[in-house]
């Protein structure tokens, strides 16, 4: 039947050059978990972004906020899952949107996703630097000015991440798995130990109390959602996963659930722990570490190491995902053709990785050298990144019913999911933007500008390069070797 499938099975894959179908389930799962960085997020985000909330005076309670965020993200994963079961995407939500809502919308989804991954990668490197220096301090090193060492650590981390990523997806995925496991283990042990020693002073009343209003709940949910973003990143490994239609749907289904459970536990724990902490600790950029260091600097150092490892893994995972979207855009001709190149022996999108990594490292280094507060910078970078993710989630979720209809597998459920999920996400994004604008924050405007630019670019392509626009939506297609081997037996 070899010649028969001409129209159906292309001879040469559009994403040729990646190491195909070699990645087993665990590294695929690690990509999702690392990009979410639950260890990092549960130690930084709640404490960082809820400084006013954790006091429990005017904020909604953490459990409810995280629970609602988890529900929203699970809805998104329900929307992505059917597409992940049907298409071995290399550029994730970008290619889903291309298949569902068309190439022009896909440009916006792709740019949003790249924006999100880039900012989270920057924030991750910044967190790596901050926690590493905190680690040195807890180990007893006396630093006159932490800015120099922080910048150096960021530079080193960026170089190391770059090396791992270029050397191969398996190496980078397994190292993220290792680091993420270490960090989750450390955090768990430290929290257990801390609570065991401080059990007497634990007061759980505040955790389950409802003291906020609904306005603060919406904002809380937006922030909490940002602790889950990245769970969708295995959708960029469709070309490299061994069984993409098993491992990717499974990874994006279970990551939000796993992360959600960890967050609910950590939120409860920190709510209790920080309830009695002094304001200086709560407003620091490494609150959990500071809190613990008042008990034991050595334990705090271990904790710092774990959190730094988690963020390092997150940086790798983010850039891995980002580089694959860029790689596809390069292949399609809607980005620089050069980023569509793969490394001949490591079979990774090395050009894309090498091109984005300097920019990603430059931002946190600049932040540090210009003396911006790391805490403030982290907040801004994470929140800005979350806009990008949410934007791509909205477009990809809305793609589901159109995607299924296009391939002739229309279902009613897909229309329900594909309409409610984007509506909820849009409401969340809108609520966040409104509050942000009222607070005089430029975040929503920056993301708005990026989104607008993507629309302009898509329009430009529409009229000037329609051929390139038409080529959007490449993925890891079925190859001859995936088919029943129609050669003579035996």
């Amino acid at each position, binding site marked *: 039947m070899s010649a028969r499938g001409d*129209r*159906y*099975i292309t001879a040469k894959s559009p994403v040729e050059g990646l190491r195909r179908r070699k990645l087993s389930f665990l590294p695929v799962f690690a990509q999702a978990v690392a990009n979410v960085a639950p260890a990092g997020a549960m130690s930084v985000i709640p404490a960082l972004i809820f400084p006013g909330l954790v006091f429990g005076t005017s904020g909604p309670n953490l459990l409810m906020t995280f629970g609602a965020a988890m529900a929203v993200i699970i809805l998104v994963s329900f929307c992505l899952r059917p597409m992940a*079961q049907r*298409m071995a995407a290399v550029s994730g939500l970008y290619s889903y949107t291309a298949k569902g809502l068309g190439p022009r919308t896909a440009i916006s989804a792709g740019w949003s996703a790249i924006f999100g991954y880039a900012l989270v990668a920057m924030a991750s490197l910044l967190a790596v630097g901050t926690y590493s220096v905190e680690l040195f301090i807890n180990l007893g090193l006396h630093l006159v000015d932490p800015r120099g060492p922080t910048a150096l650590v960021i530079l080193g981390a960026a170089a190391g991440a770059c090396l791992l990523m270029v050397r191969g997806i398996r190496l980078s995925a397994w190292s993220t798995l290792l680091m993420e496991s270490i960090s989750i283990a450390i955090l768990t042990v430290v929290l257990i130990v801390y609570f065991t020693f401080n059990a007497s002073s634990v007061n759980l009343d505040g955790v389950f109390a409802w003291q906020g209003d609904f306005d603060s709940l919406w904002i809380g949910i937006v922030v909490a959602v940002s602790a889950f973003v990245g769970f969708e990143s295995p959708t960029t490994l469709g070309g490299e996963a061994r069984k993409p239609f098993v491992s990717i749907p499974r990874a994006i289904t279970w990551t939000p659930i796993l992360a959600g459970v960890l967050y609910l536990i950590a939120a409860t724990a920190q709510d209790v722990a920080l309830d009695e902490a002094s304001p200086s600790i709560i407003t620091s950029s490494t609150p959990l570490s500071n809190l613990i260091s008042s008990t034991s600097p050595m334990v705090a150092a271990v904790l710092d190491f774990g959190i730094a490892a988690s963020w390092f893994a997150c940086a790798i995972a983010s850039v891995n995902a980002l580089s694959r979207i860029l790689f596809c855009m390069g292949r399609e001709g809607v980005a620089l053709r050069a980023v569509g190149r793969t490394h001949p022996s490591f079979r990774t999108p090395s050009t894309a990785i090498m091109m984005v990594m300097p920019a990603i490292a430059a931002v946190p280094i600049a932040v540090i050298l210009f003396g911006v507060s790391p805490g403030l910078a982290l907040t801004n970078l994470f929140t800005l990144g979350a806009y990008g993710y949410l934007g791509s989630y909205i477009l990809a979720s809305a793609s589901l019913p159109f995607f299924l209809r296009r*391939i*002739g597998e229309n279902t009613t459920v897909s229309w329900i999911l594909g309409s409610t999920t984007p509506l909820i996400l849009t409401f969340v994004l809108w609520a966040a933007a409104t509050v942000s604008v009222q607070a005089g924050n430029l975040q929503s405007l920056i993301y708005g500008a990026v989104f607008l630019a993507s629309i302009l670019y898509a329009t430009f392509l529409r009229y000037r390069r329609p051929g390139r626009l038409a080529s959007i939506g490449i993925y890891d297609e079925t190859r001859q070797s995936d*088919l029943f081997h129609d050669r003579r*037996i*035996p």
Partner: protein
Amino acid sequence: MNYRPSYAGTGPAATSLRILEVVARLGTGTTAKEITEALQIPQATAYRALNALVADEYLARTSNLRGFALGHAITGLITAAAPPAVSTAARNVMERFRSGNRFAVHLIMYRSASLRIADEDPDYPLHAAFEMLRYPHASAAGKLMLAELGDASGSVPMRPLAKLTEHTITDRGQLEAVLAEVRATKQASDVNELEEGSASLAFPITMPDGSLGGALCLFGPSARFPTICEQQEAARELALRMAPLLF
């Protein structure tokens, strides 16, 4: 030839097998709609089964994602189950040879590391057919296959080597030595190893690419083994003539 949809099953496995059958019939590009229509099953059932089959790579989606084709994972089943095809021309050549030969002449084919009896001597049916298929180390045809496979221990699960008769080779070292000899002489023999009192000689029939495709086997009483061996040249010549008619 009959189109009627084949026997319908009830379980999820049956649904999957029937879907595979429809795709095999209609060929690459069969759509989910065509499948639900052919099998008269609910869409949701079909989609679930299709996605499970795609996930396990028994099916693959075509480039437009609408169509399906048989995936590589089904190869093992089809290869193992498909009956060996022996054309009339090949059968005639076998018949002519048999008519001038006192001993049983069987045609064996190899399929995914196992033997298939492609053309059995009608006058002397194989007694130990089951053992031949199951214990390749005990028969001449089986040894040809093991020799071709190279590292026999890795590719065929025959731990421990079954002892069918007093003479069956059950020592791995000894078997390896025999296989080396088979590779050198391009023929294999078995005397009393598969069945007490019976002996056989096997000659390889090669495929166009030079690999082992089948074997011509002479069977006779073990007491007559020297006489069987006298047929060597004629059998080799037959194996050469059979090759283009089979592969």
